[in-house]
């Protein structure tokens, strides 16, 4: 995957955590991964337009709870509706801020979906490779997993509604 589609997610993740959570995120070297996602909690956003695929904010519960707690101002159980809503808002902001840096590309993002559960699997779109960006905050590790690619040409673009 072209770095032009990876670096915006590193920058966006750091900006979202700094602005909204007052947290610094250290990122490691992005690496190819065989499957999505890495951890128990997945916030998923679909991309369409000139770039297609999906973005997964993947967190272990041990990290998701305190991170969500910071955003909500109070710690909540992962079974609470607000927990999923907050994870969705985080991946929404990360994806939105990243796509703005895709030079000259018109990209739309979907409303977020949230999956919580150990060992779940998110199917990636065909012809995409997975790249995982390792991230570290004070309470542990999480990742931003990407399975996105630019469309091959106009033929792949859906007809306007």
């Amino acid at each position, binding site marked *: 995957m072209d770095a032009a589609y990876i670096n915006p997610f590193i920058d966006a993740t750091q*900006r979202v955590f700094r*602005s909204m959570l007052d947290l610094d995120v250290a990122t490691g070297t992005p690496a190819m991964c065989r499957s999505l996602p890495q951890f128990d909690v997945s916030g998923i956003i679909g991309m369409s337009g000139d770039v297609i695929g999906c973005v997964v904010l993947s967190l272990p519960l041990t990290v998701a709870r305190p991170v969500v707690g910071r955003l909500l101002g109070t710690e909540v159980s992962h079974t609470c509706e*607000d927990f999923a809503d907050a994870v969705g808002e985080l991946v929404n*902001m990360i*994806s*939105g*801020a990243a*796509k*703005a840096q895709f030079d000259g590309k018109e990209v739309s993002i979907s*409303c977020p979906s949230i999956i919580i559960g150990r060992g779940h699997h998110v199917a990636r779109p065909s012809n995409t490779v997975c790249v995982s960006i390792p991230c570290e905050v004070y309470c542990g590790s999480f990742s931003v997993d990407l399975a996105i690619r630019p469309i091959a040409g106009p033929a792949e673009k859906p007809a306007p509604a």
Partner: protein
Amino acid sequence: MRILLIDDSRTMRNIEKGILAQIGYTDVEEAVDGQDALSKVDAVNPGLILVDWNMPNMDGLSFVKAYRGMGNRTPVIMVTTESEKSRVVEAIKAGVNNYVVKPFTPETLSQRLLETIAKSKAA
């Protein structure tokens, strides 16, 4: 002044409510999407509206177009992840008065709120 918050995320509405309270605005009503907001605007009669762009049922841009189409002049601030210049221009053309890109710091949102309120009072 009564303020209407339109966002499908309760998390975001709560964050916005907290920032509004810090600058002295506590009379707040909420809607979960554009359709919900249109059904409430007459009863709520807001003095200011904050609206997200990407929402199910009716998005923020469609809401602003419909709301302005009804002849309403209440100031509207778009609070969204959509930060491309083309989107900002599209929103302003539809009748948005100010624009805040998510993620934002509390200071940024407070500043935009206060400047929009000051402009509407001066008009």
